[in-house]
């Protein structure tokens, strides 16, 4: 029963190409529209006599606006700083925690694992009011430092969970061989298992960074002052007022905010999907 070439072509067309194209169009059009809008000047933005799905006179006015009329650079640096610091803190703690939960057997380890899993499930909308009280008590409310303390509350549970799943997929034998050859327990963990966990750690790091980079609720509530705004808060509070929306600069800001994440994602994609699914599937 050899299929004819036409038959094979039709099969491939209907499964998967045609449905996939439709799905991808819906999934990706917003990004196309975001970038396109960011390149339109004010005149073209609301000019519907031409085909609006293309930009006829691309301009960088919107991007210039971000740096000249509002302090986009300062928002980006704030976001970058907060995201980097919280990612590093959370990763260090989560690697230690994930290794412990996956590899070490001692009294209470299962309970601790479940407790951390519960904290992973606690939504930020439940915590934002009482956490403000804690921040006030330690004198960080209103300062940018508040975010570096608060973001690990959702990053650590998430990364620990993801890394526990990842550590479980790494065979234990190499570590045991190293110990037989005279390596200490910590030595074997650091020299043997840790290098093998790099894809998982990378994934957790990218996720942690993206989650911080994207965070809005805490940044909105805990930080005050123009100089302390993070990227999402700055964009929304300065460019999306109730009376006037600067759609061009807003889309330019959204494009600039998305590009770093996208680049990192495409660069590390293979690690990313493996790390993500091993955590989600086996965790």
């Amino acid at each position, binding site marked *: 029963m050899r299929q004819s070439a036409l038959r094979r072509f039709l099969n*491939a067309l209907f499964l*998967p190409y045609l*449905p996939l194209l439709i*799905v991808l169009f*819906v*999934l990706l059009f*917003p990004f196309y*529209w*975001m970038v396109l809008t960011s390149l339109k000047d004010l005149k073209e933005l609301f000019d519907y006599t031409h085909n*609006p*799905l293309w930009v006829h006179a691309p301009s960088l006015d919107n991007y210039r606006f971000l740096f000249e009329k509002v302090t986009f650079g300062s928002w980006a640096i704030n976001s970058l700083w907060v995201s980097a610091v919280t990612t590093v803190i959370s990763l260090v*703690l*989560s690697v*230690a*925690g994930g290794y*412990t939960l996956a*590899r*070490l*057997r*001692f009294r209470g380890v299962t309970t601790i694992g479940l*407790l951390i899993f*519960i904290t992973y*499930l*606690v*939504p*930020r*909308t*439940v*915590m934002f*009011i*009482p*956490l403000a*009280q*804690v921040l006030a008590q330690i004198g960080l409310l209103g300062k940018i430092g508040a975010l570096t303390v608060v973001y*690990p*509350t959702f990053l*650590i549970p998430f990364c620990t969970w993801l890394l526990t799943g990842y550590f479980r997929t790494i065979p234990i*034998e190499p570590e*045991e061989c190293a110990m037989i050859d005279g390596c*200490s*327990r*910590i030595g074997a963990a650091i020299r043997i298992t840790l290098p093998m966990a790099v894809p998982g750690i990378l994934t957790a790091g990218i996720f942690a960074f*993206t989650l911080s*980079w994207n965070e*809005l609720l805490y940044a909105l*509530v805990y930080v005050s002052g123009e100089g302390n705004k993070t990227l*999402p808060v700055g964009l*929304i509070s300065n460019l999306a007022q109730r009376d006037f929306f600067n759609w061009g600069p*807003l*889309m330019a800001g*959204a*494009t600039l*905010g998305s590009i770093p*994440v*996208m680049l990192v994602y495409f660069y590390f994609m293979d690690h990313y*999907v493996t790390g993500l*699914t091993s955590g*989600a*599937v086996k*965790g």
Partner: protein
Amino acid sequence: MKLTSASSTRAVPTVRRSPWWSFHRDGPLGYLLISPSLLFLLFMLAYPFVIAIILSLSQKRLGGPITFVGFDNFAKLFATTRFWLTVKNSLVYTGGALLFKFAGGLALAQLLNREFFGKRLATALVLLPWIIPSVFSTLAWWWMLDPANSIINIMFKRWGMITTSIPFLVDATWAMGSLIFLNVWRGVPFFAITFLAALQTVPDELHEASKIDGANAWQRFWRVSFPLIIPVVIIVVLISTISTLADFEVPYLLTKGGPRDATMLFGLLSYNYALGVGQLGIGAAVSLAMLPFLAVLVILALVQVRRET
């Protein structure tokens, strides 16, 4: 996983058994490695959670003192129609979004679970809505659904598919629909990729065998593949339900609960009480009112996780 560290001493009989405090044993090393995280979470999650309970039982205005009032906040809250509307909206939003994310994710995973040219690229692109920070993609959707300048309305009108603009964010039903759509748009990629990873662990032999037994594609999926990926499905659905129920960012950007509270959700209502009118007590009560729903979901998730480990 059957070998634990105890086997390291067993494997080499000449090694002396380490003393109880030694980091060569699992216990001390484990406590050392896990306690920074635990202490941090205790102070920044467990402690504020207690504060949330105290606040919900107190009258507290922004910057004012705390006075204990018992269940007054809850009584006040339950007496408002706005609260019950919020409960209803949250259930509609969560239920609707989860239904479509589940069905869409399963369909998309099944679509991708075959060999074809460009599979790697397609998988990468599918995941993009989930990768791109939601604040920025929601800004793009906001612009696409803008009452006056929605590109969707403009193009549909151009192509003669509609004559009057669709009131995406203005009409109560459309606004809820838009919110659900956005949540699904962002969530489906994650569902699909996770389901796909699970589907790929289903052994080919099972499919071959059932094919020989005369099962068609539909039966092979529901009778062979699906039962095997149920553990993954359960955990993904539960976690996603929790985050959808407690969603804040996307609804805050897109509708702020409007029009006329038609898309008011727990997170937004709590935010409005706390930041809008400075009633921290009632705000805390709103977020704790989510607890019964959350507790059920958390317990189900725990049962599932325990069963797996």
